[in-house]
């Protein structure tokens, strides 16, 4: 009891600490001062009256949303004496692996730099600045020579690193037993099995209405859809983050999605936010970073070639270029096992006073990174709002997909969850694929790293991301990957090579996500 209480007070203290520095705090203060003018505020019961005022005027709701947001994002402290690295990643061998992976990435980046003799950063001459400002809304028309640039790494390079992860304290034993994990990931992390997943994703159950299933053309809308839309509108009217998160587990109606996501992520476009974005834009105009060319290359290679996202090419530059310069992103490294790369001013290598984070936001984009942003362009059209949403999505979810950690939503756990589900519930398929040299993870890895962006049809992807927000976890990606394999199991049993297996699973654009998930979790005989 005492332990819980002290934990709670610790959490409260942390959140209060965090919120005190935020804009909301100063707004609340201002509101409180302004409310003194009101007749209902009496000196004798000042505290209660102001609280009452906050409740009525909706400020309490905003505060609630902010607290809820903090709770969702910031991990709970394990022990007051735990060092900060434990917050990033409690397991030593994971930290080490992440560290050496980062070294490799930096080496690759540096060598590309020296090869092409391009500086990591340079100030743009005035003429170039003016030109870029003019072209800001159509940077896609630029066709710089990117042939010499290569992406710093691709998902499959990352997969190789994960495959070689080992826990030095864990002895697998040489003899094969039924416990042996047949997949590529060989670290003992705790992952959920289907009964636990059923509990966790209870709202996806068969007897609960879902968007993505119960809004199909055959189902009369009175059965579920109309009511669901009505509730959604109510949730938006109440502006309650927690309620929105609960609501969206059953999917979001198309017309309400943009607002619901903003509510859940606690994004409200304040003038300060727009100003901040403009500031970032100015940074982009003034300085050119090597990372920019990587971003350009990535967009050209992935989103521009996509049948549906090519239209949003310009938005992608506007978001990603600003994103690399956003130092507020650095704060998420407190709970990310990764660390921002450091660069030193020329000639001052090793001197801490001359160290800067490079890129300023500490995130080096890899091949396919722009696909995290592309689906959001479908929902948000105003650049600063789009930017905020993406940034929040990144620091809550996406970063876990390309850093080595033991977090249940981290990519390692997702891979292990996927493989375990497959091995436990589709053993014949798993064994067959393994025999023909087509380890399932080799195919599904790229789906999970990109959170299925670019593989599913957009409306299906958005339904999937609804659930990611609703459950505040990425585990659904692994479940979906397993469900896809289960769905195509018959065809996969007949293939005899990795290439053939890839071909069977090459096109996911016709899949309906929610029925697959529902069947896999709730309707498969185990």
């Amino acid at each position, binding site marked *: 009891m005492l332990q819980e209480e002290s934990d709670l007070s610790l959490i409260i203290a942390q959140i209060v600490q965090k919120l005190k520095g935020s804009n909301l705090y100063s707004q609340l203060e201002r509101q409180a001062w302004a409310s003194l003018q009101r007749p209902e505020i009496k000196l004798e019961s000042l505290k209660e009256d102001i609280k009452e005022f906050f409740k009525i005027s909706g400020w309490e709701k905003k505060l609630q949303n902010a607290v809820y947001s903090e709770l969702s994002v910031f991990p709970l402290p394990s022990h007051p004496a735990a060092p900060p690295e434990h917050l990033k990643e409690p397991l030593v061998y994971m930290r080490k692996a992440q560290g050496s992976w980062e070294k490799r990435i930096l080496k690759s980046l540096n060598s590309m730099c020296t090869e092409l003799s391009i500086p990591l950063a340079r100030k743009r001459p005035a003429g170039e600045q003016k030109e870029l400002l003019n072209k800001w809304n*159509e940077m896609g028309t630029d066709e710089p020579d990117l042939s010499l640039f290569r992406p710093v790494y691709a998902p499959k390079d990352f997969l190789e690193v994960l495959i070689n992860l080992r826990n030095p304290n864990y002895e697998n034993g040489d003899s094969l037993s039924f416990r042996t994990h047949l997949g590529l990931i060989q670290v003992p992390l705790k992952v959920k099995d289907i009964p636990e997943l059923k509990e966790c994703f209870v709202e996806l159950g068969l007897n609960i209405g879902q968007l993505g299933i119960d809004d199909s053309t055959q189902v009369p809308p009175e059965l579920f859809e109309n009511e669901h839309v009505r509730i959604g509108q109510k949730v938006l009217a109440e502006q309650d983050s927690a309620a929105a998160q609960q609501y969206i587990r059953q999917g979001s109606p198309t017309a309400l999605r943009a607002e619901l996501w903003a509510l859940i992520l606690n994004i409200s476009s304040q003038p300060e936010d727009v100003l901040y974005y403009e500031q970032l834009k100015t940074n982009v105009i003034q300085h050119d970073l090597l990372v920019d060319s990587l971003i350009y290359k990535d967009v050209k290679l992935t989103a521009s070639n996509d049948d549906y996202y090519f239209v949003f090419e310009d938005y992608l530059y506007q978001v990603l270029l600003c994103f690399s310069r956003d130092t507020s992103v650095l704060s998420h490294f407190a709970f990310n096992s990764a660390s921002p790369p450091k660069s030193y001013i020329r000639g001052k290598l090793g001197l801490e006073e001359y160290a800067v984070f490079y890129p300023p936001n500490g995130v080096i984009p890899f091949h396919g990174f722009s696909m995290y942003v592309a689906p959001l362009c479908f929902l948000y059209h105003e650049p600063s709002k789009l930017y905020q949403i993406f940034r929040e999505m990144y620091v809550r979810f996406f970063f876990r997909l390309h850093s080595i950690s033991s977090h249940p939503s981290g990519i390692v756990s997702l891979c292990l969850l996927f493989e375990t589900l497959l091995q436990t519930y589709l053993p014949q398929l798993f064994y067959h694929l393994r025999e023909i040299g087509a380890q399932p993870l080799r195919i599904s890895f790229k789906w999970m790293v990109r959170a299925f962006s670019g593989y599913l049809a957009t409306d299906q992807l958005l339904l999937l991301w609804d659930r990611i927000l609703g459950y505040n976890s990425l585990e659904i990606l692994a479940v979906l990957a397993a469900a896809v394999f289960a769905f195509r199991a018959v065809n996969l049993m007949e293939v005899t090579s990795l290439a053939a297996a890839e071909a069977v699973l090459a096109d996911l654009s016709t899949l309906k996500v929610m029925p697959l998930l529902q069947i896999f979790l709730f309707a498969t005989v185990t």
Partner: protein
Amino acid sequence: MVPSSEALLGPGTTAIRCPKKLQNQNYKGHGLSKGKERQQRASIRFKTTLMNTLMDVLRHRPGWVEVKDEGEWDFYWCDVSWLRENFDHTYMDEHVRISHFRNHYELTRKNYMVKNLKRFRKQLEREAGKLEAAKCDFFPKTFEMPCEYHLFVEEFRKNPGITWIMKPVARSQGKGIFLFRRLKDIMDWRKDTRSSDDQKDDIPVENYVAQRYIENPYLIGGRKFDLRVYVLVMSYIPLWAWLYRDGFARFSNTRFTLNSIDDQYIHLTNVAVQKTSPDYHPKKGCKWMLQRFRQYLASKHGPEAVETLFRDIDNIFVKSLQSVQKVIISDKHCFELYGYDILIDQDLKPWLLEVNASPSLTASSQEDYELKTCLLEDTLHVVDMEARLTGREKRVGGFDLMWNDGPVSREEGAPDLSGMGNFVTNTHLGCVNDRKKQLRQLFCSLQVQKKASS
């Protein structure tokens, strides 16, 4: 109301053939007489001049066979030049079908369409009042050149500074089109065309139309786009028209700005023009399927606004077809698949750019290929050479019956988002197209009905 398709050939014995070019004969009969067909399972031959998706569809249709050079045919997907030269002296049996109306240009040539629409509008105003006539205002102000030049100048002077677009009346794929803002520009152009014509006296001066350019198009990702929608007209009198659920939005490859009206590539969104733009990368594929477009709009403007927009688009089809109803020679052998080009402006108002009698059937991508093959398959289902349909169907595959001598309503129980009372039109443009399933159910039930009645 359904033209009686007396194809008593039964399933599997339809012959599609193409005649040899007429020489001395005035008439060439087509189609075998009823008696012969019933007995034999003729080897079915077909031929079409179009070597693209249409050929694939025709070749794969069970019981349809290509006809070589000389030979009689029951079905001809012809091109308009053949029609112009041969239709008048070709005799066709009752069951024979051909893919164009004799004078389709009343709808598809820009100057005729404008004339017909203007006349129809006046008639509507007389009969039903200004409000009803205003429903015809989906065509930007157009003037035929050179005969309406003075009217054009008057309008031009009333609206200084706006942009106009000059389009050749009969060309396609964006050829010969240019934009202008000053009268001086067209003076220069007239001089240019005249001077070049001096050398070639035989070629008549081409007719052009000057049309008000829509300066505030709806943009997605900063790009201009137009919609290609398919309408199948089985007859004009009575008007019997079907609307295909799928279609696509064609994007311009470059960002929209009024500053560079000389840059043809920005303003003209025909794929043919885009393909020649230096920016064009075929992998990019600048098309969105209509479903995607509809969803995008719904997430941005809400379902009601989208419903209103699509209702207005339906209105364009109906009014444009009604305006030429009395003019087009409604031969029961004819049907036509039109490609409508629609532009949406920033106020979500749809504008009719033009109607194509021979929409391109060449596929630019895998997705495009599938769309066009399904479109053609369903067209052939509706044309129903196999005489399987009852004629009372409201939906065949991806086609929804839009107009059957009057508006057609959806099934009971459909949600009425338009708020216009209980009538909801039977169109589903940009909606889910589960055509395979529908066709299976349709043909199964038709078979059952047939068995029951025989």
